[in-house]
């Protein structure tokens, strides 16, 4: 896209119709909240660590 294309941030509206940011999925408030929820993220921390160790062990 170029300067003259529909710009999401120019308009202050990230869902400008037919702009590049019109189509991608955006997270719900709940999904966003989970990303920094301490309890949930602690569990994810354990899961991600296990996943990465499994990867390390695979080679």
């Amino acid at each position: 896209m170029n300067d003259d294309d529909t710009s999401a941030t120019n308009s202050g509206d990230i869902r400008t119709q037919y702009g590049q940011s019109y189509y991608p999925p955006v997270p719900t408030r709940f999904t966003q909240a989970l990303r920094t929820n301490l309890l949930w993220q602690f569990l994810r921390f354990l899961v991600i660590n296990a996943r990465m160790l499994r990867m390390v062990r695979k080679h």
Partner: protein
Amino acid sequence: MARLVILGAGIAGHTAALHARRKLGRDHEVVVVSPNSKWNWIPSNIWVGVGVMTPEQVTFPLAPVYAKTGVTFVQGKATCIHPEGDAEGAQPYVDVLLTGPDTQGQSQKVPYDWLINATGPKLNFDATPGLGPNGNSLSVCTYDHADHAARGLDEAVARMQKGEQQTLLIGTGHGTCTCQGAAFEYLFNVEFELRRRGVRDKAKVIWISNEHELGDFGMGGMFLKRGGYITHSRVFTESLYTERGVEWITRAGVKEVGAREVSYETLDGEERTQNFDFAMLLPPFRGVGLSALDRQGDDITTELFAPNGFMRVDADYSGKPFEAWSPSDWPSTYQSPKYKNIFAVGIAFAPPHAISKPMVSAKGTPISPTPPRTGMPSGVMARQVALNVVDMMQGRATEPTRHASMARMGAACIASAGASLFGGTAVSMTMFPIIPDFEKYPDTGRDIGYTSGEIGLAGHWLKHLLHYGFIYKAKANPLWVVVPE
């Protein structure tokens, strides 16, 4: 007594040195040649570039670590390899231009029996006029560059605080760049900082890159299981950009960086421009420019190195078309086919071809990512090569027995999206294998069970832990060997 010389003390060279030293008895010598007196945990340069870490926090002096472990350190820059020695004798050696404070400008012959080239990339800012810290854009590739970028960001923020609108352009500065992941991290950290400093509404943040689609990262992207679908990383990445109000320009080969404007060509062959007030654009990489001479003094550089300056190893360099690519094209022992006592690891080896599909613009300009070689595979291949060399030095093997092909290796990568202990996030990714294998996984190229990606605070905690964990390991502190590469 045999002598192993390692060129480069980055992630690959330093890993190889520590493992070789650990395994070799004192009757063999390990020598590291590197121009910089400090070791740098490069992934954290991103945080230096937004001012949340200092260069001192991401570096440490190498000499005390090598003194402690018994590695000989030559502070200098290798310039030429003599794999057959010279007219005076058959002992192979490397010409080194010394760079230490007391030796600056002197040269030294460093003889070797075994050689590991881990010299990483030359940051090729010259490929694009105006690109780089000596031109009109910033970089985060070294800690000095990143420190400079942080000051540029502070200045842009100060202008925003005065009410000025600013355009921040972040991405790749040439049609053949790699390392999009690093630029992605910087983009998201800058965006996070702008919000933290209360000026996000004054900034237009734009991504520019040579990727065909967002989420390619030079790896052809990857497929992930999400919400009952198998989804390409493009969807995930576009979502992250949209959520943050970041615009994107893809399929772009930057051709020139002016004082406040970049000119770029698109895959369609169109010439376009984008203005900016702050630009961090990565350079393309090439080999560091080592040359090679045979015993008679004839130039054999092209026999040891590919045209891009990276070292030829046990890969298939026949230049097959994209449709004929195979995982077996990728090297597994990193041994030079010409000289069996020379190896190249990390960014220094020449990849047989790209991972993302090569694309050329309507005008014939290549605009697609070259293959990244991230920290984890660089470390793993360095360890395996070092252990193979140790076996051969100690007479336990006559050829390399361990293999570390990127086509049979997975990678874990954490891309920071904002540094804060309670409000930060990072994208945690795993993939297996690194090189897609469409023979084994016809639909996705990779094992979906091992390929994952998610964003959250947990990723930031992990990235923070890795920062301390890898610096601890690189300092060869007690039990360093249990920290995986």
